[in-house]
């Protein structure tokens, strides 16, 4: 197969997101007309590209950034032990473990709660800007970056699960009790928003910019 690179869009074909069946786009289907076509095999709505991909992804990314601020400033856990009350944010927890020589666990929380969500958000911002500027720079590498954001997002849930387990286990009345803080709610919001943001972004947009100069 050494023929010219032909995409489904060039051929006027719609590719089904769910079952990959190709369907001919209704003739004269200009992007403005919102006449929805459905996959004849599985019934999914068909789109040339994910609808409003850039706008939706931007909205979700910005919302996630906004949630990330209170997620870091407000406490994740509130520990009550023998009358003393201690609130811990994500960073204060990480610093505590690093200072007490328990760097493996400190590192796990740092990666899951800080490195992963921030990396994911910055990659998405970069991809959005590069697509909007019609960049033709290294599309393969940018597609790989997109795959990274898809793969790593779920691991941010680690800290939420840790809090869940601590809450369930450490409830010994006055002796020691751990409660989830408000920060955990915002952090959960960050995780969910970034996962949906990666879903709404359409990596085919990266390649669309390549074709507009090569073939047409």
């Amino acid at each position, binding site marked *: 197969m050494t023929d010219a690179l032909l995409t489904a869009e060039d051929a006027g074909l719609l590719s089904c997101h769910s079952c990959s069946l190709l369907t001919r786009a209704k003739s004269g289907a200009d992007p403005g007309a919102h006449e929805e076509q459905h996959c004849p095999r599985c019934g999914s709505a068909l789109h040339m590209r994910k609808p409003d991909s850039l706008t939706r992804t931007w909205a979700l990314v910005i919302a996630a950034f906004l949630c990330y601020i209170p997620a870091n400033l407000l406490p994740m856990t509130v520990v009550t032990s023998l009358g003393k009350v201690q609130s811990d944010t994500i960073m204060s927890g990480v610093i505590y473990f690093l200072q007490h020589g*328990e760097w493996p666990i400190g590192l796990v929380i740092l990666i899951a709660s800080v490195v992963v969500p921030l990396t994911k958000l910055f990659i998405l911002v970069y991809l959005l800007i590069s697509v909007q500027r019609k960049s033709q720079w290294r599309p393969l590498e940018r*597609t790989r970056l997109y795959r990274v954001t898809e793969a790593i997002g*779920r691991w941010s849930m680690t800290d939420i699960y840790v809090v869940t387990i601590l809450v369930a286990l450490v409830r*010994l009345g006055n*002796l020691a009790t751990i409660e989830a803080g408000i920060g*955990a709610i915002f952090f959960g919001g960050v995780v969910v928003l970034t996962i949906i943001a990666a879903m709404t972004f359409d990596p*085919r947009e990266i390649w669309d910019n390549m074709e507009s100069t090569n073939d047409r």
Partner: protein
Amino acid sequence: MIDTSNLIACHECDLLHRIPAQEGLHCVSRCRRCNAMLHRGVENSIDRTLALTFAGLILFVVANYFPFLAFKLQGQETQTTLISGVIGLHDEGKWEIALLVLLTTIVVPLTQLLLQLYIFLPLKLNRTPWFLAKVFRFAGKLSPWSMMEVFLIGILVAIVKLVGMAQIIPGVALWSFALLIVVLAAASANMDSRVVWDRVEYQR
């Protein structure tokens, strides 16, 4: 006019590819431009998926029924199962997190296992389940929200956190969790979606 029946478009860069007439089993085809996976063929896909689904359901029951950790401090002991953690969060008024944990570790994995049973048991018996296309599509949409493997990391971190504070006793559910994660991953790796879609096609 192009014949579309033997073509497939890459989901990540939209490039068209011809589906090889004789595709080897156990072979992965990738996009020649962006290297995304186009299709992965699996031998005896229905049998394998069904067997792993049964194993997963048994492990799921064990993992949820028994406590996975116990915590002992000055004679007092508390235990936790998956659902008791969710209830604990809910009782504190953190229902948003309780719901998120409930969905990602209990509801979604269980729904996926039950749907796999609903789909692959009739297929094995050479019948077509009702609403096959709709159900299979829905099951596929659920998979990003099943996070059992992340929960296991959460358990490990919690153990290390608490180990200096009190005595931590791992329960039987912890081992079923670990096995369940392997089984769930194997089930999704052995699912050949083309087998199901061909069946839908045949039915039309």
